[in-house]
């Protein structure tokens, strides 16, 4: 028996009348996809779950998602995605020691559709190595909320930025044209903690399309009101906003604690309650 596994998942969501219906919802170990019932018209929710609560070195998960015209899909995780060097309680073969854990996800969102990718943050444990490659193909009038965040590790065990490597790509194409390719690599060994201090959580939020214009407008106004005077030390939470093409924005957030960032995101995205409904919004960002 090997400790490394390759899981595949596929989600196809289409709108029939006012019901968002899965024409496909399948996955293989260690990935599991669960869709709880919800009352919102035109909207479906899927939880991405990994057995054992995490991924180990050598694991690879690939997910392919199609959101049909005018359908809305919310993708959530159940707790943070934990990346272990080894599966707890299991001694990995020495050949697995240097292997990377990889999650590869391809999303396509058709005209008028929307994808709300709102997982919990990724937490890489000591010495873990993780690749996450996400590609988003959007139709010209599709919408996207992409949240990608990472924590410093198991703070309770004194782990702060002591994983081996974290690599994350988010590539967004609108109508076939690349509008953003955000590539973040964290792997500086001894200097990583000092260069990310004092923060224990970093988030990237990418917003695009007609359904998020209200959120973007509100955030842009709030950002414009900030005026920075000479500070005596770093603030507990910092965020930035840059416009992205026509009708998009990239928001980055850093916070002393993961919960600070979560609270900030919940506030920043409160405009989504109208689209998602309070119940789903609370599950995603509550």
């Amino acid at each position, binding site marked *: 028996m090997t400790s490394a596994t390759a899981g595949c998942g596929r989600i196809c969501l289409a709108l029939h009348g006012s019901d968002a219906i899965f024409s496909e919802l399948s996955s293989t170990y260690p990935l599991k996809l669960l869709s709880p019932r919800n009352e919102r018209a035109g909207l479906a929710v899927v939880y991405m779950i990994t057995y054992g609560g995490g991924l180990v070195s050598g694991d690879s998960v690939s997910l392919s998602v199609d959101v049909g015209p005018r359908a809305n899909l919310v993708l959530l995780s159940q707790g943070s995605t934990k990346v272990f060097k080894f599966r707890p309680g299991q001694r990995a073969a020495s050949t697995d020691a240097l292997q990377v854990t990889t999650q590869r996800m391809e999303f396509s969102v058709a005209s008028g559709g929307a994808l709300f990718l709102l997982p919990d943050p990724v937490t890489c444990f000591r010495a873990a190595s993780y690749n996450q490659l996400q590609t988003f193909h959007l139709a010209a009038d599709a919408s996207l909320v992409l949240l990608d965040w990472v924590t410093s590790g198991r703070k309770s065990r004194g782990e702060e930025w002591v994983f081996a490597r974290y690599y994350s790509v988010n590539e967004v194409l609108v109508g076939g044209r690349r509008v953003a390719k955000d590539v*973040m690599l964290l792997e500086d060994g001894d*200097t990583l903690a*000092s260069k990310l201090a004092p923060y224990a959580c970093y988030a990237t939020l990418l917003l695009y399309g007609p359904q998020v214009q209200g959120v973007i407008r509100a955030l842009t106004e709030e*950002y414009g009101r900030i005026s*920075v005077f000479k*500070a005596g030390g770093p*603030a507990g939470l*910092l965020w*930035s906003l840059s416009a992205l093409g026509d009708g998009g924005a990239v928001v980055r*957030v850093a916070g002393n604690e993961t919960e600070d960032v979560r609270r900030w995101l919940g506030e920043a995205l409160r405009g989504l309650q109208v689209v998602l409904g309070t119940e789903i919004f609370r599950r995603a960002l509550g």
Partner: protein
Amino acid sequence: MADETILILLLSDSNLPTGSFVASSGLESFLKHGFGFVPSPSPIPLPVASGTPSNDSGTIGGVNHSHPIPPTTTSISKAEAITTFIRDSLSTYAPSALPFVSDAHYVVSALQSSGGGKEAASRTLELLKELDALYEAMTLNHVARRASKAQGVALLSLYSKGFSRPPGLGLHFSPPAANGNANASEGGIDDATDADTRMATLVDAFKLAVRRGDTDAHGHLPVCWGVLCAALGLSLARTQHLHLYLHARSLLSAAVRLNTIGPYAAQQILLHVGGALVDAQLGKCARLRTGVLIAEVSNSSTDGGAGTNEKQERGWDETTDGPATTWPLGEILAARHDLQHSRIFNS
């Protein structure tokens, strides 16, 4: 003097009109937000074993007589803060920008040494735009984008206005043969003039595309730096090294103008730490490529060209061999530059 020395002297002159003096690459914002001066729990590891100005409290203030900086812990921690910023800034700038410098240098050098005609020139222009568009998509922070475009376009102008042959003068500079560019050195003035004309045409066409606002042409600094250096015949290794060195130097220049450290301390840091930091990043990032040229190289590999780059790019894996940013905190602080109540730099 057909070697690289004169080029390096020219390109590293702080009087070079590139507009880099208005950029602090996030340093001003970093300091304004209160970063850098908080005593860190552990000493900051530097890639130099000894001779760093970080621990010897007498060094920095002591040598500076005309700008006396008292040898207090404040001045030491400021020098340390600047050194740390340079380390972290280089650690993200090198892997994100150097692949673009390298690939732009490669395509322009290839055109120069091939003696290619119109078709090759227009293909080169297409590739430069592709590199430029990718850099634009990867540089999501609007302040860094703005600064990169301003400085990049300035380099293109510098080539056509500042490095072209003055009319009516008999003498002219022959690019060095460092790129395996046999034509320029062996073929005499006629071939060299042809090559000059080819490069001038290419640079002008690229600049025009940027000015016209072509969707893919932005004139980003790393791409334009690669173009400029290749057009002048500077080797890839020198081109890469100089780019990172100038990044470090302009940060120190910004630090002096922000009155954070004195001019002597800046030289001291550049000599004793800056060089090693630049070398460390070169060691890691000189081999990185954008991935844009992979298709190109495999297309042309049948006619036997390409050489070492072909080998490098075969089996290219974006997760280990591609561009990436590595300092999310630096991204946030640099993007917040415009939020400062008062500021002296443009980025």
